[in-house]
């Protein structure tokens, strides 16, 4: 009998490749647009504050824009890889689950781009109005609510996806012990966050003319409409992660598990780092006048780790796609 050989079939058709190129180009242009707006804004106050020339300020902006581009492209890479895998396995519960996870990641991408445009728009508008602090306050309120909304949408989609995956195994969604422990941990986190907000002198009105307020709202309004919903969204993300790991532990298939491992590692890293990043971003505004460089360095490290997480997610999804694209001749 003739010896059989297995090969991977061509995974992407020409039209798929063209669509992928369109997505990458569109996202790159959107990102470059945000960078251009940020460079075009009048940064003379920032330059004076840090004793830099305008050229140096623009150079720093461009240098910081590169890791930003890398992260949006990594998010797109992760999202598209999961979405393609979901398509390849059709309308099964698993397929729907992976599709929902992909949508969650796309929501994160949209939120990231929207956040950048809002920040740039605020910079530009505040140069052309009589009361720039009012514009800064209005924009920071909008930006914070957009961030809460994006966080909720992202984690809710991940939760829906992970529930569908777990449903496909017919497993109980979450253990009782976890139902008590995880929310308890997040209540502590919410209390810590509320305490940090309370200690922030710039929370409602900025004491520094070059920067806007961090929240622009009264303390209790900030706690109940920004901090608590944001921490609640992190809780949703944590539950999604527990479901995903439960699916990984309980699913059958020695080889499937080996291929799925990278995906789970990537998702774990992504959810954990995204929460850390959101917390650090808030801290950076709290301590803008103190140890900013240390916090910015930490944010860059977290950005690097997030890029790695999305590459893991994408590679994991691509490895799972290998099973669906194998052809034995």
């Amino acid at each position, binding site marked *: *009998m003739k010896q*059989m*050989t*297995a*090969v*991977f079939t061509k995974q992407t058709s020409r039209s798929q490749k063209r669509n992928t190129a369109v997505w990458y180009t569109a996202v790159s242009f959107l990102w470059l647009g945000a960078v251009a707006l940020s460079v075009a804004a009048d940064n003379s106050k920032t330059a004076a504050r840090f004793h830099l020339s305008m050229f140096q300020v623009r150079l720093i902006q461009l240098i910081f824009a590169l890791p930003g581009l890398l992260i949006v492209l990594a998010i797109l890479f992760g999202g598209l890889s999961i979405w393609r895998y979901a398509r390849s*396995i059709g309308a*099964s519960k*698993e397929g729907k689950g992976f599709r929902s996870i992909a949508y969650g990641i796309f929501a994160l991408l949209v939120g990231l781009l929207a956040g950048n445009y809002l920040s740039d728009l605020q910079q530009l508008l505040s140069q052309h109005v009589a009361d720039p602090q009012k514009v800064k306050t209005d924009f920071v309120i909008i930006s914070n609510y957009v961030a809460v909304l994006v966080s909720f949408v992202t984690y809710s989609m991940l939760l829906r996806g992970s529930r569908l995956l777990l449903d*496909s195994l017919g497993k109980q969604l979450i253990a009782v012990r976890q139902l008590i422990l995880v929310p308890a941990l997040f209540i502590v986190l919410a209390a810590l966050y509320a305490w940090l907000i309370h200690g922030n002198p710039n929370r409602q009105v900025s004491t520094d003319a070059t920067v806007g307020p961090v929240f622009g709202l009264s303390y209790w309004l900030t706690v109940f409409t920004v901090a608590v919903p944001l921490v609640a969204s992190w809780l949703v993300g944590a539950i999604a992660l527990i479901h995903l790991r439960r699916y990984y532990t309980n*699913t*059958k*298939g*020695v*080889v*499937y*598990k*080996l*291929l*799925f491992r990278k995906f789970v590692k990537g998702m774990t890293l992504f959810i954990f780092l995204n929460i850390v990043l959101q917390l650090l971003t808030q801290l950076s505004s709290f301590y803008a006048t103190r140890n900013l460089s240390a916090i910015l360095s930490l944010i860059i490290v977290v950005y690097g780790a997030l890029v790695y997480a999305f590459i893991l997610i994408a590679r994991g999804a691509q490895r*799972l796609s*290998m*099973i*669906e694209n*194998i*052809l*034995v001749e």
Partner: protein
Amino acid sequence: MSDQQYYQQVVSATEEFLGPAAERFVNRQIEFHLGKTPQTISREDIPRLKETLGAALGLLVKDKAIVTQAMHKFDLIIKDENL
């Protein structure tokens, strides 16, 4: 054993290796290599399916023990022993 039972045994043995992707994989191989509808396979078709799974697993993982284990599972089906 009926054709339907052979199909169930093949899917169940493949599931131990390919998990939720097993049924899709088996269906594709049956349609492509045997030109049959998935649930109409007979005992004579098992050796060919055994070979396709072996070749596929060989490409997916480096661990030869996994491939050998899978082949053994299929041998048991051919011998009509309980899995």
